[in-house]
Structures are given as C-alpha cells and as structure tokens.
C-alpha cells in the first residue's frame, strides 16, 4: 500500500487536466483514469474565499438565450402555458437583438464617465435614466425588439399592444421606458409596458456588463447596485467562490448582488423569516416571507436545479404567489414582464 501513495514527479506540464477532456472523445473507449501521481495539489480550487463577490454582472450573450430555452421548456402542459410561450417569444427576440447588437462595432459610451463616478461616490447606482436616453441605447433596443418579435398565437391584445408601440413617437416610447425604469407603470398601458421592459432589460444588461464590478457598492436593501432596479427573485447559487450564498437577481439589468441569507430583502429584518413552498410541485422554489413587514420574495434553489431562471420561474411559480397572498403577504420582488 505504501507504493500506492508514493508520488513520482509529474510528467505532464501543470494545467493539462486529463479529466477535463471532452467526454465525447472517450465515449466507447475505456475512459482514461487519472493516475494518482498526476494529481497536483491546487488549494485555490477548494473554493473558500475570505468573502464572496458582491456583484455578479450579467452576461447578455447567455442571459436571454438561456431564459428563452427555460421558458420554452416550462410552457407545455403548464396552466400558464400561453403566457410562458409569449415570454419565450419575447426572450427569443431579446436574444436575437442582443446577438445582432453584440456583432456591431461597439458604440462609444455617450455618457461621461465622470457622471457615473459621481453617482458611485455618493452611494448611488452608476446606471441611471441618462443611460437610457443616450442615442443608440433604449430606443434602438426597442426598435430591434419590435422588429424581431414574432408574437405567433398570442391574443389580439398582445398584437395590438405591439402595434401601438410600433406607431408611437420616439419621445413617447422613451417617456414610457423611463417610467418603467423608475417603477411607475401607467395602468392603461400595462400591455405595452411588457415590451418596453423587455427592451429595458436588453439595454441595461448591455450597459451593466460593461461596468467595473469592483467599483460597485451596496446602495440599499433590495436595490440593484448597478441600475437601482428592484430584485425579481432571490437565488441560492452554486458558483465556486460563493457556494450556497444568496444573490438577488435584478429585474432590469440582470446583475446579481449578494444579500445575507435569512434576512428580509425589503426591510432588512431577520426576526420572523419563514420559507414556504408547495412541495408537491417543487421543493426548489420557495417564498421567503418576512413576518415583520409582511412581504415575500421568491427564493430559488439554483444549487439544486441550475436550470432555474429568476424571471421565467417567477412566472411559472405564480401558483405560489396566489397561495401566499391568501396569508396576507405582499410581493417584495418585481417582475416587469409579469406585473401582478
């Protein structure tokens, strides 16, 4: 047995990991087993860091495409299938616009960096309504989205809303965009707001992805440190440096920021937090309820089911909202694609 533990100097250069080769290569052949002497100590990969990263900036190239896939998988045989299908179509359009915009020559930042630095210095999120008003930002995203959108079998009301938005003047569209950004939804234009919010997500995720994440600081409980948006859901993540830490997913820019677990996302109290779920449907989707301010937020266990998407699964688990509302709790999250 002593020989078993003896190490000979590694023949291969460090960094080449035989276990990491494509599984397709080894299929059918005897899988190559890693020899003990090939193992290199790598304490950095144990995954423990002094602190977890405060913000995870969005990756727009994956964000919308993955969300579209998730929505397409959720829609069939779901009581809300029609709406999930509509959101899947919106997410598909978002993904295609994002891909087209990413292919273009990157546009120079029209907003002076000094403005963002000033906002950061005073504890405010760097992205503001000025990021939307820049030429080629929000309005270009909305135009692209409306052009790429295929509503398919959606009800007439959805087609009408998209048509109304197509014929609206640029000033009117920008005005609506700023209102949705600031969380003020005009009730008589709720349908148009969904498409506007989708364009906002495109525009803001693009801007947020370019931010310097080390410069971002906590703004307030339940406020996105990148764009000031409200969280859509809380996620228990499984990333290597932050295993099982809780992150809040921004409803607008898609950034995720760390928020201590077992602490209300709206009022910051940790006194009377409970977790409730419909176990028959899913144990991975809970609501975190706060007995102090009587609010709740969706709590998704992404470490158990990595496919969970904050926006898509918030809509798909609407039954949980209906159940928890019966107990007198208000929603502390905001899903601009599904305002209830």
């Amino acid at each position, binding site marked *: 047995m002593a020989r078993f533990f003896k190490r000979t100097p590694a023949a291969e250069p460090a960094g080449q990991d035989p276990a990491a080769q494509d599984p397709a290569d080894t299929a059918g052949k005897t899988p190559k087993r890693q020899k003990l002497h090939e193992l290199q100590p790598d304490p950095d990969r144990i995954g423990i860091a002094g602190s977890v990263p405060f913000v995870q900036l969005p990756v727009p190239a994956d964000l919308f495409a993955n969300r579209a896939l998730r929505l397409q998988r959720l829609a069939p045989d779901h009581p809300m299938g029609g*709406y999930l299908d509509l959101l899947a179509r919106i997410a598909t359009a978002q993904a295609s616009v994002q891909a087209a915009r990413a292919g273009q020559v990157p546009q120079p930042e029209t907003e002076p960096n000094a403005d963002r630095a000033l906002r950061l210095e005073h504890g405010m999120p760097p992205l503001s309504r000025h990021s939307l008003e820049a030429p080629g930002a929000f309005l270009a995203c909305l135009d692209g989205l409306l052009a790429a959108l295929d509503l398919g079998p959606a009800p007439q009301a959805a087609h009408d809303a998209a048509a109304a938005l197509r014929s609206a003047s640029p000033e009117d569209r920008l005005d609506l965009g700023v209102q949705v950004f600031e969380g003020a939804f005009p009730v008589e234009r709720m349908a148009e707001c969904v498409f506007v919010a989708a364009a906002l997500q495109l525009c803001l995720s693009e801007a947020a992805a370019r931010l310097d994440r080390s410069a971002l600081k906590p703004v307030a409980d339940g406020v996105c440190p990148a764009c000031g948006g409200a969280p859509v859901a809380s996620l228990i993540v499984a990333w290597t440096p932050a295993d099982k830490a809780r992150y809040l997913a921004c409803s607008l820019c898609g950034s995720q920021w760390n928020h201590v677990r077992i602490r209300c996302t709206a009022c910051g109290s940790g006194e009377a937090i409970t*977790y409730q779920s419909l176990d028959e449907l899913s144990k991975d989707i809970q609501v975190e309820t706060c007995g102090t301010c009587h609010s709740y937020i969706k709590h998704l266990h992404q470490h158990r089911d990595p496919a969970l998407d904050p926006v898509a699964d918030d809509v798909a688990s609407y039954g949980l909202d209906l159940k928890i509302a019966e107990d007198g709790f208000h929603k502390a999250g905001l899903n601009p694609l599904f305002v209830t």
Partner: protein
Amino acid sequence: MTIQVSRRGLLKGGAVTLAGGSLGALGFGGLEPAMAAAVRPFKLAQMRETRNTCPYCSVACGIILYSLGDKSKNARSAVMHVEGDPDHPINRGTLCPKGSALLDFIQAETRTKYPLHREAGAKEFKRVSWEFAFERIARLMKEDRDKNFVAKNGDLTVNRWTTMGFLGASATSNETAWLTYKTVRSMGALVFDNQARV
C-alpha cells in the same frame, strides 16, 4: 393613472395590486383562475432557517439549522437538517465531519437534557433538580477549594486553586466569555478554558 411599484413601494412591502396586471392587459385574463385551480389542492409547507454556532470547538463555525413547522401555528417544530452558514466569515458554509453530523447530536436519544446524578457506588444516573445540582457542585467546589487553595508561595501571595478545572462552551458570546473568566478567575482557578482563544 400611474402606480409606483418599486423602490419606496417595495420597501414598505405594500406593492399595490394593479388592476388586471400584465396577464389581463395582454389578453391572458383566463390564466389566473386556471393557475389558482391548479394549486388549490396543495398546502403550503413551512420551513424555518435559524443561524447558530457549532458547539464543538473554539473555531465556532456558523451553522444554519433547518427546521420544519412554524412556531406561530402551534405546530411541533423539528430540526431536520444542519448546514454550514455561507455568510459566516469563519467557515464560509463549510463544516468539519463532526459539525456535519450535528443533526445526530441534536436528535441523539442519549442527549443530556436535564441534570443527572450518579451517587458514589450507584449503577444508574438519576434525574435531579437544578437546585440539587447547583447545591452539590457548589458544595464540592467549596470543600475542594478549602482543602487545596494555595494562598502563599513562600513570601509571595499567589492565591491559586489548581485542583479544579472549568470548561466553557465555544458558542458563547463575548459577554458570556467575559463573565465566565471573571467568575472562575476570582475564585483563583487556573485550570480554565472558555474556548475564547481564537
């Protein structure tokens, strides 16, 4: 009419229900009753997560106790899972094998829940009152201290009592550790570990 739903509205936890919302506005008004009907047969399962400190050693790792049931509804709550606290700066969600097995520690049938006393020569432990336990511990300590207290080492005053030892717990707060130190040291005891050394 506009309705503010984010930021200040959210902080108050009083998001106003918008008439119809996105579902109704986009022509999906029929889906909400369908969703409500789909979940009607199900009951919400309640769970609590509680922060605590591992009682084993002086590293004092943060742990989260997962329990079923809700105190407010008179349901009997029971711890069903123990995990490291990912927000705790010391262990960042990790636990040693002993800490990982804390659930068995909590639910052990042999867990000490009240003072037990085995008289010299007796075979069995007997349940006794706290009053009896305190009385007996104090008496034994007093007898031992009276017999073995060392006040002088030659000409030097030392006031030491080395025949009694005291062990504190790792999950105590700073204040408890301070109080333990003051109480034990004031009796002259030197054999003392209140697990506050890291």
